[in-house]
């Protein structure tokens, strides 16, 4: 196996002129693979995701997509290269309707995306019901569904999700995980941060435990789940 | 937060240099004139900063409060016009009481009634309006007919003008209370335009209600808290002393008078600044910042957001009213027609933002600096034009045109300087910390 499809390698950096949050942190994912990042609050998981997406300037390290160095690209340009991202917070257009949110997800697509939209509605039926309602009026879990739906609309080759299941009900969460597996099967790389770490690691091909901006443990999902210390310190026993 | 960094001190020093430089390049009288108005501007900026910087209230009605303060100065310090009182004063006051009663009745009806309340309130207001007009108008006519070129109004209380400063503050505070009760539910730019509108209404009243303060006919010759230059010039002791010290008595007299104002204003500013700083650095200030950051959360944490908004709105407005009374005192006249939002509202905002909103020292610095600029951009603009045209051939069309337009360089220069300052310190010269 050659170099990974998407890799943020030895990333070091922080916000603005502030201190470094990430220290030599590496995150990678291959096509069709699900990589899950777990770790305590404030470990730098979201920061790592943002770094991979170019929303923060790195002081050291690089990001490569399919062999190409994209460290210097703007986030938009990365979207153009087939990367999709659901941030952890403020991840929907609150003043726009649910449907418009999804359309915006498909903004860079020039083809007919009604199929994809139908798929998203299938996945999250409630969204279909609330299609014409401003997304800001939705409940917390519904918003989260909109956010994920928006990213799915892009039909990206890499999908990055920052805590997609935060606040969604168990039934929706299960479906969401199922769907993520499905998506991965179509050859899309999935990189996600999860606090519902046990379920996430169950389905993960690869797991990263970040602590204070550093890679603390890396392994397959199963390995990490089996690691007693990881379980106790990061997965809640 | 209350401490100044070395760089802040350097900024104050820079402004001081500007003022002192003005003294050498132009004259000390100019310096003091600008300084006095700068002190008043700093106070206004302080008031706005309380509302915006502490609590995030976007008040664009400063002009109205400043004008009310000015009204306070007239009502306190001008001598009463006995004849006007005799002719129609009582009737006029009775009219006002009737008007107030009508409004109170309407509010009570709105609060008490459950059925037909819209109808009842409308009825009360309508009937009340006509009763009010029938009593009031007669009084107004009688008062305004009394020697309209010189008086034609009720006059004031004839008290020392310094008393009018707190009174001006109180007038503004009262108005702010009423406005706050009704309009503070509005957010951001909606509140802004609402207050802007209210300020226009205040000015409209001042302009058109001649019985109150002569309307657009202006009240001039307000008494002063400091001696008159002429009296000093006529005082032998003063002339003798100044000549002995080697000063020209005329210049010395006007400088003395201005220094008198400076001392008074400085005292007021120092007190206000101390009060504001102490409040800001306390749990009260913390609560205010919390409210500004997130009203919903502050409310959930037990802070009565509405009440606090009202409190700060009233306080900030009172400070503006106080400054307004001081300004009218300094001008020696109340000229409602000169109240323009650009000058009395937006310029003050520029002071706050350029200085650094949320920071009292910033507001004060902004007050001095921006006012100095406002006055000095005129010669600066003209100089700029001279410089630009100096290379051009005499008599060329462009040169003539440029020189002719020099006067308009005043606002242009102001704009450019403002943009430059904002560019290099977007959060203000002394930002909030």
């Amino acid at each position, binding site marked *: 196996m050659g170099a990974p499809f998407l890799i943020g390698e030895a990333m070091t950096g922080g916000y603005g002129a502030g201190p470094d949050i990430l220290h030599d942190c590496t995150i990678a994912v291959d096509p069709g693979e699900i990589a899950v990042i777990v770790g305590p609050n404030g470990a730098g998981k979201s920061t790592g995701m943002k770094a991979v997406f170019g929303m923060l300037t790195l002081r050291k390290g690089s990001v490569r997509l399919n062999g190409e160095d994209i460290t210097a690209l703007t986030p938009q340009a990365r979207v153009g290269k087939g990367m999709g991202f659901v941030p952890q917070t403020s991840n929907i257009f609150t003043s726009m309707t649910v449907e418009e949110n999804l359309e915006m997800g498909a903004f860079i697509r020039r083809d007919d995306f009604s199929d994809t939209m139908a798929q998203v509605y299938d996945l999250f039926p409630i969204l279909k019901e609330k299609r014409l309602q401003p997304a800001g009026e939705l409940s917390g879990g519904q918003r989260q569904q909109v956010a994920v739906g928006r990213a799915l609309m892009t039909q990206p080759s890499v999908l990055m999700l920052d805590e997609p299941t935060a606040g969604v009900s168990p039934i929706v969460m299960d479906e969401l995980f199922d769907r993520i597996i499905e998506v991965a099967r179509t050859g899309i790389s999935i990189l996600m941060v999860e606090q519902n770490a046990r379920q996430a690691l169950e389905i993960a091909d690869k797991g990263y435990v970040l602590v204070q901006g550093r890679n603390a443990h890396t392994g397959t999902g199963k390995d990490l789940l089996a690691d007693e210390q990881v379980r106790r310190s990061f997965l809640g026993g | 937060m209350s401490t100044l960094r070395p760089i802040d001190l350097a900024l104050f020093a820079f402004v001081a240099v500007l003022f002192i430089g003005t003294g050498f*390049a*132009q*004259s*000390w*009288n*100019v310096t003091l*004139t*600008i300084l006095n*108005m700068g002190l008043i501007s700093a106070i206004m900026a302080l008031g706005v900063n309380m509302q915006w910087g502490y609590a995030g209230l976007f008040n664009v009605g400063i002009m109205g409060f400043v004008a009310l303060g000015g009204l306070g100065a007239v009502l306190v310090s001008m001598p009463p016009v006995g004849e006007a009182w005799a002719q129609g004063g009582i009737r006029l006051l009775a009219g006002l009481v009737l008007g107030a009663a009508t409004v109170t009745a309407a509010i009570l009806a709105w609060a008490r009634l459950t059925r037909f309340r819209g109808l009842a309130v409308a009825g009360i207001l309508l009937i009340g309006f006509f009763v009010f007009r029938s009593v009031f108008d007669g009084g107004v006519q009688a008062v305004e007919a009394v020697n*309209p*070129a*010189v008086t034609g109004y009720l006059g004031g209380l004839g008290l020392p003008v310094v008393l009018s400063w707190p009174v001006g503050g109180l007038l503004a505070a009262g108005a702010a209370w009423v406005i706050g009760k009704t309009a503070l539910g509005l957010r951001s730019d909606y509140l802004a335009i609402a207050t802007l509108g209210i300020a226009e209404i205040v000015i409209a009243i001042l*302009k*058109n209600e001649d019985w109150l303060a002569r*309307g*657009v*006919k*202006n009240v*001039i*010759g307000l008494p002063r808290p400091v001696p*008159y*230059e*002429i009296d000093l*010039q006529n005082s032998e002791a003063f002339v003798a002393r100044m000549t002995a010290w080697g000063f020209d008595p*005329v*210049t010395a*007299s*006007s400088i003395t*008078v201005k220094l008198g104002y400076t001392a008074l204003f400085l005292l007021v500013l120092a007190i206000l600044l101390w009060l504001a700083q102490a409040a800001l650095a306390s749990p009260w200030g913390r609560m205010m910042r919390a409210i500004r950051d997130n009203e919903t959360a502050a409310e959930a944490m037990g802070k009565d957001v509405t009440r606090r908004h009202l409190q700060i709105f009233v306080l900030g407005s009172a400070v503006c009213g106080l400054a307004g009374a001081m*300004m009218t005192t*300094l*001008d*020696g*006249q109340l*000229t409602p*027609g*000169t109240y*323009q939002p650009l*000058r009395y509202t937006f310029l003050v905002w520029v002071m706050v933002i350029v200085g650094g909103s949320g920071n009292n020292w910033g507001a004060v610095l902004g007050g001095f600096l921006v006012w100095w600029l*406002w*006055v000095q951009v*005129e*010669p600066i603009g*003209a100089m700029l034009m001279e410089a630009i045209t100096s290379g051009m051939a005499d008599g060329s069309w462009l040169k003539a045109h440029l020189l*002719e337009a020099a*006067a*308009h360089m*005043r*606002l242009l220069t102001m704009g450019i300087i403002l943009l430059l300052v904002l560019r290099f310190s977007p959060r203000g010269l002394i930002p909030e910390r």
Partner: protein
Amino acid sequence: DGHSPIKLGVILGFTGPLESLAPQMAAGAEMAMAEVSASGLLLDGLTVEPVRGDSTCIDAAAATSAAERLITGDGVSGIVGADCSGVTGAILQNVAVPNGTVIISPSATSPGLSTAEDNGLFFRTAPSDARQGVIMTEILMEQGIESVAVTYTNNDYGKGLADSFQAAYEAAGGEVTISAAHEDGKADYSAEVGALSAAGGDRLVVAGYVDQGGSGIVRAALDSGAFDTFHFPDGMISQALVDNFGDEIDGSTGQNPGTDSPGAMLYQEMATAADYDGTSPFSAEAYDAAALIMLAMQAAGSTDPAAYKDAVMDVANAPGEPILPGELGKALQILLDGGDIDYVGASAVELIGPGESAGNYREVTFDGGELQVVGFR
């Protein structure tokens, strides 16, 4: 010859609501100064240099600062200005009187200024509006117009004029159907015109400024057919009015300060030669204001205001040789020789009482799209 030039301040509203009047006024004042400088006769050949200051017309504080700078910074020996009554009062009280500087306003016409405390330092070459109201009444009554609607610009000038007119007109038996203010520089005057037209009247009196709300009112009144004829006081009379409305206002009347003295015509020719509009309101008065200061200096033999302030009335009034615009050199010579002059100037100056123009008005009508002077009062 070793003398440094004398400086005279010109404080006018170069920016603000009267910014379009100020350039012509300044040009007038400065033309007089240039004329005197060129003559080389003022106090042993002193030259005169104008220093401009912006009164903004409305911002008392800015105007005061400008005056302060001119007097104490540039050391001007006298001031032409200010234009608007409000700021003029402020400058007078806060700067001129304390510093003992003479100021002569070409255009502040508010009656209130007649009684202002001035230590003999304040003069104006424009008449108080109290007088204009009477003249206006005479003109209208003679034409048999007994009912008019009045609109005035909402400042001390407009209000003062409207009040004095209404008093005089009603005393003469006329009826003012409505007296409504209008604000200058506003976007729309339909409401005002609606009210004026509803009140009715044989003619609409527009006590406003021609390049301000006044024209807006006339435009709206004509467009809606509310009034066909108007009466225009001084603030409205100018070439601009004719340019704006042409024959639409045929049959209207008006008056403004002015005389049949050849001075007015002469001044206009001079202005045309100097490439500015001499008919612009108060431009002539500005020329006269500047001239008066310099002539008074010559008469007193000093540039010290304390000395020459008392000479202003002397040079302005009879007895003496009448002086027209363009004859400043001659006047200086006469004074130098110890003679007496009676400055007539461009606006037939005659200072009365508290040092203000007595008020000579010319009566005009509009006919065939032209402004025609039909008489003088």
